[in-house]
């Protein structure tokens, strides 16, 4: 057995107390095995990976045994452990851009591996001889060819920011493999990359495993990634392994409740559309959206950067139209143009419903961090009240009922119930909410003013799969109950297929 972990517990000590990240985990890995470790945020899967590498931050402590080739790494000093790092065990991280030193040429960063382990005391007869400068460079170039980096000589002299995300990750992999490690830990290696690049990197990992017999521990939140290259899988939930087995077992015959949820979330059936109305909520004709790029030289006309050209589509009443495109394809800019937040466009955008709204992607700032949820949700109603009061003073007829502050508060509570949040959330700040809860508030805010047309911009892409599932169900229910029309924007084809009546593709 290459790696054996016995009853591993990891705790983080912070100002707020102790968090148990890993609660007594045991498993083993054989030489040449590809083991998938899957779980959502907070499951402890990344902590587990970092523990194996001895890369836990100073605030963490752990107990248990980590036997690598029979030696207990948990008992080793920093110096003893150091001789394993990069040499026998290597790691590839999620964010290749930030994981590389921005000021050092990538070739040098990879080459460093060859000088680091020259004087290691352990004697296992692998690659510890001193190499000349030219030999080192030759080895790096050879490795660059192995990981299929274009023009190794040129790439050698480049800085990280001059490479694409996929190339950066290849450099990281080259670096990790430089000392022919026996175990490679890949911590979400493809999460930051576009879909087609993801596949290439996964294929590369599989190829390395096949050719060199390097065992790989692949940590990921994405079951599809695991399914693609792993033989065995551990499913982690809240710091524990809830299920383990071969990929086939886990996917076709999951035993644990949580595993079933995970599998269900990615195996959703596409939606069967039964819509038969011709009324439109939104018409877009010949829409060309662009950016004005200010010229560096004074007096020169600004350049136009075209986001999309001559788009034509319509959203029918009660329909969910999907808009799919890669990151950077301008999906969000188009939606902002439709809502009047982005002025640089030509063509026609005709709304047939009042007050179109947007559900934003959950981010740390999709809700005002300085305000309570109650205040945030009341804001649209306050604005409406102010508007009608002004109209009334100006002598306009047909003023609808203007809500009093009490009625407004009641409406906020009502809306919280609709998005299935407890009433006491009115007194919470956004930072006290989880990602899924924040997304519910985002939905509530968009619906607060009684809007019938909503644009949802990547509403679930930053959430865990099981939470995604809940939010999408809520969104579909609300859409049916309130008769909403929706433009649903996402990069994720699976999500779009599940939710939308019709789909259009961008770029």
């Amino acid at each position, binding site marked *: 057995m290459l790696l054996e972990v016995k009853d591993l517990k990891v705790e983080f000590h912070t100002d707020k107390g102790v968090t148990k990240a890993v609660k007594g985990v045991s498993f083993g890995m054989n030489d040449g095995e590809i083991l998938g470790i899957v779980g959502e945020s907070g499951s402890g899967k990344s902590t587990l990976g970092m523990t194996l590498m001895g890369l836990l931050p100073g605030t963490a402590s752990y107990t248990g045994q980590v036997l690598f080739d029979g030696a207990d790494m948990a008992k080793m000093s920093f110096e003893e452990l150091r001789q394993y790092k990069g040499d026998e065990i290597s790691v590839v991280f999620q964010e290749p851009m930030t994981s590389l030193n921005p000021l050092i040429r990538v070739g040098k960063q990879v080459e460093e591996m060859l000088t680091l382990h020259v004087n290691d005391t352990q004697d296992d007869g692998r690659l510890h001889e001193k190499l000349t400068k030219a030999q080192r460079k030759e080895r790096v170039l050879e490795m660059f060819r192995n990981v299929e980096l274009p023009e190794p000589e040129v790439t050698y002299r480049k800085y990280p920011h001059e490479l694409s995300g996929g190339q950066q990750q290849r450099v990281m992999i080259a670096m990790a493999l430089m000392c022919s490690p026996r175990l490679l830990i890949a911590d979400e290696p493809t999460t930051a990359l576009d879909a087609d690049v993801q596949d290439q990197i996964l294929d590369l990992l599989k190829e390395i495993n096949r050719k060199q017999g390097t065992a790989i521990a692949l940590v990921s939140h994405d079951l599809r990634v695991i399914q693609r290259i792993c033989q065995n899988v551990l499913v982690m939930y809240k710091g524990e392994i809830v299920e383990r087995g071969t990929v086939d077992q886990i996917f076709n015959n999951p035993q644990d409740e949580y595993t079933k949820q995970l599998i269900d979330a990615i195996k959703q059936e596409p939606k069967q559309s039964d819509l038969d109305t011709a009324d439109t909520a939104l018409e877009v004709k010949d829409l060309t959206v662009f950016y004005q790029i200010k010229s560096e030289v004074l007096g020169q006309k600004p350049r136009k950067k075209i986001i999309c050209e001559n788009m034509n589509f319509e959203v029918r009443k009660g329909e969910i139209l999907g808009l799919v495109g890669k990151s950077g394809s301008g999906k969000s800019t188009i939606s902002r143009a439709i809502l009047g*937040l982005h002025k640089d466009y030509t063509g026609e955008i005709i709304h047939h419903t009042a007050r179109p*709204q947007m559900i934003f*992607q959950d981010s740390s700032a999709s809700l005002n961090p300085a*305000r309570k949820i109650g205040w945030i949700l009341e804001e649209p109603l306050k604005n409406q009240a102010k508007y009608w009061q002004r109209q009334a003073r100006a002598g306009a007829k047909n003023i609808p009922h203007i809500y009093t502050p009490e009625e407004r508060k009641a409406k906020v509570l009502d809306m919280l119930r609709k998005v299935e949040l407890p009433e006491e959330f009115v007194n919470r700040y956004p930072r006290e909410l989880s990602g899924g809860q924040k997304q519910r508030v985002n939905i509530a*805010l968009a619906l607060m*003013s009684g809007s019938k047309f909503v644009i949802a911009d990547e509403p679930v892409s930053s959430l865990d799969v099981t939470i995604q599932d809940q939010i999408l169900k809520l969104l579909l229910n609300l859409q049916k109950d309130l008769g909403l029309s929706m433009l649903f924007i996402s990069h994720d084809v699976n999500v779009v297929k599940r939710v939308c009546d019709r789909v259009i593709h961008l770029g």
Partner: protein
Amino acid sequence: MKKKRNYNLIIGCIITGIVLLLALVGLFWTPYPTTQMSLELKLAPPSIAHIFGCDHFGRDVFSRVMQGMGTTFLVSITTVSFGMIVGTIIGFLAGYIGGWFDEIIMRINDVLNAFPSILLALVLVSFFGSGLLNVIVALGILFIPSFARIARSEMLRLKGLQFVQSARLIGDSHGRIIFSQILPNAYTTILASAAVGFNNAVLAEAGLSYMGLGVQPPDASLGRMISEAGSYLLKAPWYAIFPGVAIIVLVLGVALISEGVSKID
């Protein structure tokens, strides 16, 4: 595990509290009249009656330090508040409106910001003339650019966030977006720079009065006291040391508070 004590904050608050008390009391009452001279007490060393000793006119140094701290404190708080309010408004507008307005404001700001505050203060004082009121005006103007720059960068950071776009969609007016949605998010940053600004103001005021351009005699000021004491260093080192320590303590207290505040989430 026990929660870590924020020592910076606690010590800073204690120091500032004591200094503030002395300074504010010093504006209205001091143990001895600050201008009461006495030949016998000329350069008297510290004693129970005069804990900081006496100066070359036999005036009580402790009383004069109290009054000097009061003046310095008042000058600093006024100028920083003025600079903060005006600077924040200018910076917010520049950041929010953008375009040529922003260009012009920020080019002027860049030039002014490159200059150390004491140098600009000197230029302004030579323009307005010396004296306490002129120093206040000069320093007040002086602090506008740094706050404008910070407020602007805060505005640029916050303006791009989603909740601001969302505020526009739900029908918030520009005024409401700036003051109700964005401003509360910028408080901490602006107040933190106010602490830095306060310390700069203390040092600038003391420096100007050291050069004889600030508070005019016979009123006490910390800088001028150090300047005068320079001639009596051999006989009466305490005369220079106590006002100097007063300045350091004034600055240290606020610095520790801002350090401590920055460590709170």
